[in-house]
């Protein structure tokens, strides 16, 4: 984990309200250990933005790091207005990684909303290692998608309003894909209701699953103790030193589906 001043080398709206930003970040890139990890972005003005903004790493290529973000509030609005050549102060790489994906399993990757970044990252990684995986991406409406619906290649897009791909949430598609594969392993990231639904399904069906979760982060470095999530069961010794809560920035953001509790 380092702090690095990184030049923006790309910043484009790739779908409705969804932006892709690329940085030159040699130091962070060389410390990067895999899909699941994230950055903490400092927004320019120290007075106005007290806490950094966490963003998953969507891709690392050589010195270059990509994030994909959705305009959510003041901070992401400001990010979308940043120009190529400007420099941002990044803290990273942070957090743990999706693990256990290998030839023995067929990964089913589920991403919703802003949760698609780490999932896309993992999808590309699987491709790189020639591990066939299925990718299910959900959005509210067609204009938020930037990939092609391509079931024959295992890429399924869903929309809540049916304007693109399969109508409905990602869950029915997850169920369908699941029923077609042997040795599935689910990886999911997305909004809370989606993660809950995925968790219910995979626990019921005893599918090994990893979820990348979000929480409000004050620091990303374990110092503020703000980013806790409730645990479903008790782990031995974690960075949070506690039994009921886990620090998402240090022990997560990736958890086994049976580890965390969303209520």
């Amino acid at each position: 984990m380092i702090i690095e001043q990184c030049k923006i080398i790309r910043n484009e709206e790739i779908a409705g309200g969804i932006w892709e930003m690329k940085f030159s970040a040699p130091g962070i890139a060389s410390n990067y250990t895999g899909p699941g990890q994230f950055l903490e972005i400092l927004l320019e003005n120290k007075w106005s933005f007290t806490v950094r903004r966490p963003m998953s790493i969507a891709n690392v290529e050589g010195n270059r790091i990509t994030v994909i973000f959705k305009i959510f509030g003041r901070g992401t609005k400001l990010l979308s207005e940043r120009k190529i050549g400007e420099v941002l102060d990044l803290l990273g790489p942070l957090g743990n990684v999706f693990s256990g994906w290998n030839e023995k399993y067929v990964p089913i990757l589920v991403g919703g909303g802003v949760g698609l970044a780490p999932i896309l990252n993992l999808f590309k990684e699987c491709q790189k290692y020639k591990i066939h995986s299925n990718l299910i991406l959900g959005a509210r409406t067609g204009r938020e998608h930037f990939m092609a619906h391509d079931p024959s290649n295992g890429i399924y897009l869903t929309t809540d309003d049916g304007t693109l791909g399969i109508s409905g949430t990602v869950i029915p598609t997850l169920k369908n894909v699941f029923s077609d594969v042997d040795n599935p392993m689910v990886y999911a990231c997305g909004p809370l209701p989606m993660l809950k639904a995925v968790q219910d399904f995979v626990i019921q069906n005893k599918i090994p699953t990893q979820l990348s979760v979000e929480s409000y982060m004050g620091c990303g470095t374990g110092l503020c103790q703000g980013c806790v999530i409730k645990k479903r069961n008790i782990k031995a010794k974690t960075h949070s030193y506690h039994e009921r809560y886990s620090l998402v920035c240090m022990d997560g953001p990736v958890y086994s589906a049976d580890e965390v509790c969303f209520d």
Partner: protein
Amino acid sequence: MGQFIQLMRFVLTDFRIQIGNIEFKNPLFTASGTFGYGNDVPDFVDVSKLGGIVTKSITLHPREGNPPPRIVETPSGMINSIGLANVGVDHYMREMVPFYSTIDTKIIMNIAGSTLDEYCEIIQKVESISSDIAGYEINISCPNVKKGGMEFGVDSSLTAELTKTLRSLTERLLIVKLSPNVTDIAAIAVAAEESGADAVSAINTVVGMSINPMTWKSNIYTVFGGLSGPATKPIGLAAVQKIFHSVTIPIIGIGGITNSLDVIEYFLAGATAVQLGTVNYQDPSSGEKMIDDLKTYCKDLSIEKISSLVGKVKI
């Protein structure tokens, strides 16, 4: 030759400050709850540059803290309600304290309790073991734990009683950390001084609240939390200035510091040292950087001793 003498002068700018019988190599400490126990900070941080480290509040028993959400950003600030999550004094003494012998930075152990006895028991445990702890900061002011000692922090006579009792248990530095959520912070500072505190620190967080106007939910599980960050700097400065006119013991200024000029403001208002809190979340190495900036400031203004600035605001 003239140039040489001037060069000599900056080299000699003296950053040492004294609180009680302890000398600190510089006046920049990290604030409780924003730097862990000092033993587990990011690799890129050089803790030995700091004048002191104040640990997160340690209680008699381990505490898991409050349910999430615990944090939310506000205009130029943030609210937190961590709920004194900490490992407890036994684990702390066993696992964290040994690390301190490896660094050359003074450690101040912040302690919190819900009864006088709890505070005493913690100090007795620490005093029974030899350790590199330089002193205690007594958190009588945590606003987000029902039994977090708030009763002490708002009442002069309880503050006096607590301070007197703890004073009798230790020769180490005893610092009382004050709450801004009172009518008269100077009166509480006076109570602490008269009861034997070596210093007071001010301010802890300001009671605040934040609501999500779309979901109507409180952004903090416990509803009320503690406001910190730049928004509170004017409040911290006012507190230090008021206390400065009421006590003779050193004051450690806290609240909203993000750069070296903020540190200067606190000195001018009456602080002998400062603590950096929320700024560590943006960059845990902020303290190191501010020390460098302070050196430049003192050089430019030919200041020979940083402590010569204390209370020098021109009115």
